[in-house]
């Protein structure tokens, strides 16, 4: 049955690819400005619904802004936050994990303790508190999530480093007089990178979901930036009459995260990574 | 003597691979029948096939598998469940992992008796204690409340044997029961099996790769190669007059004190057991056989080389032709 499982990976890749391309070039192609308000054209439904307009394929929001353009712009924000967060958290987590796994002993105990502390912190609550108390901005959301979501990187990097640190080629590097830093950079990192790739995709998905949650609660990406979570929050007041306002950004969010997870799952199976959660 | 188990033309396939083909042998009441062969020859699969415990992707075929005169081949899963553990019991190679780590010895032993016979917990425990004593477990009362991890490998295998005897089976199938154990414990377990056979009139089907064990405990031997029984006979006859080149090769591999001198090479059979696929014909051993010839690619006949001593090889007919 491996054929079917690869199919999942391919579908995921297609989804992510389409969203990526749409995010990069989409907002320029719709012929609308994501921020231009038009109070005379508020809450126009999408084209397939009654009262829809060919001008606005996915309708307009409560301020008359073109929904499709905002959706595509929102994809940019989601991917931007997802990728930047993972770069931050990946560096923190991998450094900690490799150090702990490589040296063992006291250093590893310390790393484990830091991981345990991190796991005991409720992520959403703390991220909300930071953004809420400091003031919301895109940079702050990325920094906060990056500082919080490194745990899986650390766990996987630590476990895989432990597995290979006593292998022959690492011993050979020791014998040829390499420094610990050289060994970590040239022997360990390249060999655990496939497992880190798996964590990367899964964490991007998680970061995108968390950003949406924060923005939905009003403490993430500040308006008027069109984050999908924020779009859902803004549409919430109208959802009982026009459910499509929350369905469209919700489906976009769901699909992107699903695609990302499918890619991650495919990679996980291919590399045999054990992801603990 | 009556046969407790008679297997005729058993075949087991996993997809296109034939793990067992055309295996036939008979186990008599009160007798130990050994199936011997290299790893991968299909002997364990044969044992599981008799119990109908094969994995889901395996297919079992046979002319007949007669157990105490009944053909169990046609039995439904339900009927087979009633036979297993009751009239036909089995012990395995891995005593360390064959007991459930989450239940006490007592619970696992009494469970099998209460499954097959209407009995109280107390009576079942009484029987468990009695049997544990019989198989040489000290302080059986205490063992009832213990968990498998608290017991040594030898003790666990004794528990497995006692558990197998709970329902007074007519046939005991033992799949390499001593392979994972120390040599001294091995000897004790084998002696125990021999005694039980005497005492209870039990038929034992013992699967092993060790000719030393065969020589010590078997009344009857079947030698398996690439899924086939290639020679079968009484132990004494087979060792005195091994008629298949493979059997001779196997016997030559066993060091005999006094006969093999230091520095002298032990016998060995070059190559490995081939994997059998559909459409194979002729003798499977011909690739490794020192006496192979043209004729070995053709269907192999069975010869009776002595009373109850059968061999599946072209050699006797070639020699017969020469005479």
């Amino acid at each position, binding site marked *: 049955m491996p054929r079917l499982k690869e199919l999942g990976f391919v579908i995921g890749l297609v989804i992510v690819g389409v969203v990526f391309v749409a995010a990069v070039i989409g907002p320029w192609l719709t012929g609308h400005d994501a921020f231009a308000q038009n109070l005379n054209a508020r809450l126009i439904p999408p084209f397939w619904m009654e009262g829809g307009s060919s001008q606005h394929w996915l309708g307009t929001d409560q301020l008359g802004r073109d929904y499709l353009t905002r959706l595509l712009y929102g994809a940019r924000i989601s991917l931007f936050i997802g990728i930047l967060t993972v770069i931050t958290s990946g560096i923190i987590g991998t450094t900690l994990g490799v150090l702990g796994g490589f040296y063992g002993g006291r250093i590893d105990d310390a790393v484990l303790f830091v991981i345990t502390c991190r796991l005991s*912190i*409720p992520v959403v*609550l703390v991220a909300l*508190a930071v953004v809420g108390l400091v003031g919301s901005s895109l940079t702050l959301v990325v920094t906060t999530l990056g500082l919080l979501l490194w745990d899986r990187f650390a766990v996987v990097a630590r476990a895989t480093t432990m597995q290979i640190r006593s292998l022959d080629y690492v011993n050979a590097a020791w014998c040829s007089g390499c420094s610990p830093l050289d060994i970590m950079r040239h022997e360990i990192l390249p060999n655990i990178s496939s497992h880190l790739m798996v964590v990367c995709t899964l964490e991007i998905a998680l970061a995108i*979901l968390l950003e949406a949650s924060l923005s939905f609660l009003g403490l993430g990406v500040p308006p008027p930036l069109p984050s999908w*979570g924020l779009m859902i929050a803004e549409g919430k007041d109208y959802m009982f009459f026009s459910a499509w306002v929350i369905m469209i950004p919700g489906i976009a969010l769901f699909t992107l995260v699903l695609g990302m997870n499918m890619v991650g799952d495919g990679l996980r199976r291919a590399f045999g990574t054990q992801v603990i959660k | 003597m009556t046969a407790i188990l008679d297997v005729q033309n058993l075949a087991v396939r996993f997809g296109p691979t034939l793990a067992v083909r055309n295996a036939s042998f008979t186990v008599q009441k009160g007798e130990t029948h050994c199936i011997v062969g290299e790893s991968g020859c299909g002997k364990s699969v044969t044992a599981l096939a008799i119990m109908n415990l094969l994995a889901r992707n395996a297919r079992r075929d046979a002319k007949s598998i007669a157990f105490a005169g009944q053909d169990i081949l046609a039995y439904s899963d339900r009927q087979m*469940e009633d036979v297993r553990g009751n009239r036909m019991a089995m012990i395995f190679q891995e005593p360390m992992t*064959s007991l459930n780590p989450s239940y006490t010895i007592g619970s696992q032993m009494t469970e099998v008796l209460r*499954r097959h016979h209407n009995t109280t917990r107390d009576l079942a425990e009484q029987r468990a204690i009695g049997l544990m004593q019989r198989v040489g477990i000290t302080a059986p009362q205490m063992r009832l409340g213990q968990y498998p991890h608290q017991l040594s490998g030898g003790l666990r295998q004794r528990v497995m044997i006692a558990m197998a005897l709970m329902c007074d089976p007519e046939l005991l199938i033992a799949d390499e029961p001593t392979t994972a154990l120390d040599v001294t414990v091995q000897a004790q377990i084998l002696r125990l099996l021999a005694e039980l056979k005497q005492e209870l009139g039990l038929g034992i089907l013992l699967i092993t790769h060790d000719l030393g064990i065969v020589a010590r405990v078997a009344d009857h031997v079947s030698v398996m190669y690439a899924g086939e029984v290639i020679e079968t006979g009484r132990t004494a006859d087979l060792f005195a007059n091994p008629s298949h080149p493979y059997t001779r090769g196997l016997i030559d591999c066993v060091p005999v004190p006094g006969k093999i001198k230091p520095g002298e090479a032990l016998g060995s059979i070059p190559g490995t057991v081939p994997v059998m696929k559909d459409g194979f014909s002729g003798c499977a051993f011909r690739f490794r056989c020192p006496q192979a010839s043209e004729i070995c690619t053709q269907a192999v006949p069975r010869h009776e080389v002595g009373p109850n001593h059968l061999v599946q090889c072209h050699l006797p007919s070639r020699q017969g032709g020469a005479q």
Partner: protein
Amino acid sequence: MTRFIFRRALLALSVVMTVMALAFVLTRLSGDLAISIAGPGSTQADVEVIRKAYGLDRPVLVQFFDWTRLALTGDFGNSFFFKDKVSNLIGQRMPVTFTLGFTGLAVALVISLPLGILAALNENTWIDRLVSLLVMVGQAMPSFWLGLILMIVFGLQLGWLPISGTGSWQHFVMPAIVLAFTAVPALTRLMRSGMIEALGSDYIRTARAKGLSRSSIIFKHALRNAAIPVVSIAAVQLGFMLGGSIVIETVFALHGVGYLAWESISKNDFPVVQAVVLVLASIYIGLTLVSDILNALLDPRLRGA
């Protein structure tokens, strides 16, 4: 066993202490607290009064140790916004969050255990694939969005359940389902892999050789061993769910600790925020401790150690 518990408890305690420091630092991130409390349009004199009143004029370390000392006795100071003791506020809201958490966990277990077992029994068939598809969907579903959809369907269109608030047990149904949904994927996966491992083990072959019935093999012999990790992970999951309930409580306006935290964050009510972070983290740490102990108690191999 006692030594094991003692060591784990010691570790838990030091984690709690670290989290305390973090919670304290967290609320100092916004800069001058006195200004944010005083709010816009207040004079310098107002700020100075507030600074004195809340003890914010003292050195930070003194403030920290003061807060720690009192927090350990259960006194988290007073809320600016609610004009009440923080411990009272949390005490009042905790039952709601706990009810939500436990119901959510129960629902999650009721869904994921049978699903995981079903998938394991039908490994590599379409049933198994359907279950893993459900798991994927569950992982990708934003919980707040699912909450809104349920509101539209069950609250508005079908009119079966109240849309928001805390009044009756009906108010807990949708939030509990949404919260359960966040734990179902992990628990289902764990149950499935545990069950597959158990079913392939030697002791299951023994059980079959004993002639036991299929149901006894699955539910007595395999499930007992496969369930051990699931039960202990369930405790950890409960901790996650309590921490994550903030989103769901806010969506459904369920007045639990999460909702309290959300209100306090938007009001800059830092004593409440740091207390809630500390309390939820401590509960999580406590639950992981419980999880370790449960694991050791359920597995006879660890019990004696």
